[in-house]
């Protein structure tokens, strides 16, 4: 096996992933600008909107994503040590956290929609413009984030299958590394969304 060639490939592939994560950062950065501008315009409405969100769901989902990030990071180390079964178990744990996160998000959104809060809903249209802006940003940012959670989980599930079949192994695991990097980015975005939406 040409170890040197495989190694340099992995470095290039990881660099490509980091550059992609950079573009993701700018995507969410644009949304954070929207948030900052409207926060300075409607501080009272944003504070009221934040209090209306369910802190339990927000905190639980934060803990879930941090734990999933821990498991994903451990999966990479386990792979470096050649512990294949442990890698599969850790990916499974990460996916479980991702699924619970999405279940929480579904319950949370359902409760909000049940209270008549969705972009353009009659209740929001009758209220102050700042309320509408806050909840539109809430649905936009958490929705885009949930989409990223779904994509990240799908990637990790695919890698889990590859590890099981032996296609991704101790000698070449850059696909696992890149998928976990994506997963950590999802966690990073939530680390900022959580205080900005729930604790404002």
């Amino acid at each position: 096996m040409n170890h040197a060639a495989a190694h340099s490939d992995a470095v290039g592939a990881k660099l490509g992933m980091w550059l992609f994560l950079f573009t993701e950062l700018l995507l969410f950065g644009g949304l954070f600008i929207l948030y900052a501008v409207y926060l300075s315009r409607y501080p009272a409405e944003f504070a009221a909107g934040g209090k209306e969100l369910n802190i339990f769901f927000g905190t639980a989902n934060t803990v879930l994503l941090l734990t999933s990030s821990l498991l994903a990071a451990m999966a990479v180390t386990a792979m470096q040590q050649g512990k294949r079964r442990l890698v599969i178990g850790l990916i499974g744990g990460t996916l479980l956290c991702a699924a619970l996160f999405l279940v929480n998000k579904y319950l949370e959104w359902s409760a909000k929609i049940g209270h008549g809060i969705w972009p353009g809903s009659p209740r929001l249209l009758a209220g102050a413009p700042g309320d509408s802006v806050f909840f539109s940003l809430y649905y936009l940012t958490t929705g885009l984030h949930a989409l990223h959670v779904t994509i990240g989980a799908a990637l990790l599930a695919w890698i889990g299958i590859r590890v099981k079949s032996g296609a991704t192994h101790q000698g070449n695991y850059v696909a696992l590394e890149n998928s976990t990097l994506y997963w950590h980015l999802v966690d990073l975005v939530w680390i900022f969304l959580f205080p900005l939406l729930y604790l404002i």
Partner: protein
Amino acid sequence: VAHETTTPSKAERHAGHGPGRYFVVWALLIIFTITTVVTGRMDLGSVNLPLALTIATIKATLVVLFFMHVRYSTRLTWAVVLGALFWLGILLALTMSDYLSRGWIPQS
């Protein structure tokens, strides 16, 4: 013989570590989360938002350095990460400096 001809990469040397360091980082992240929830529910006036963002930045730094293994990565990775943050900083700072200073000039 192979051991003499190839130098182990940083990642391979890192692989020798147990999961202990990961659990410490995770525990810190949970402690910071509890802290931000508690302080976020207190009325600290204008301190609330900067404090929440500071805690979030510390948490993000921990994730990037340890979970994303940047601490053990090549200089090129460091350059991309710092470059990305610098460019994000330009995006945020220049846009906000425009928006927040618009009222300074009287409309003619």
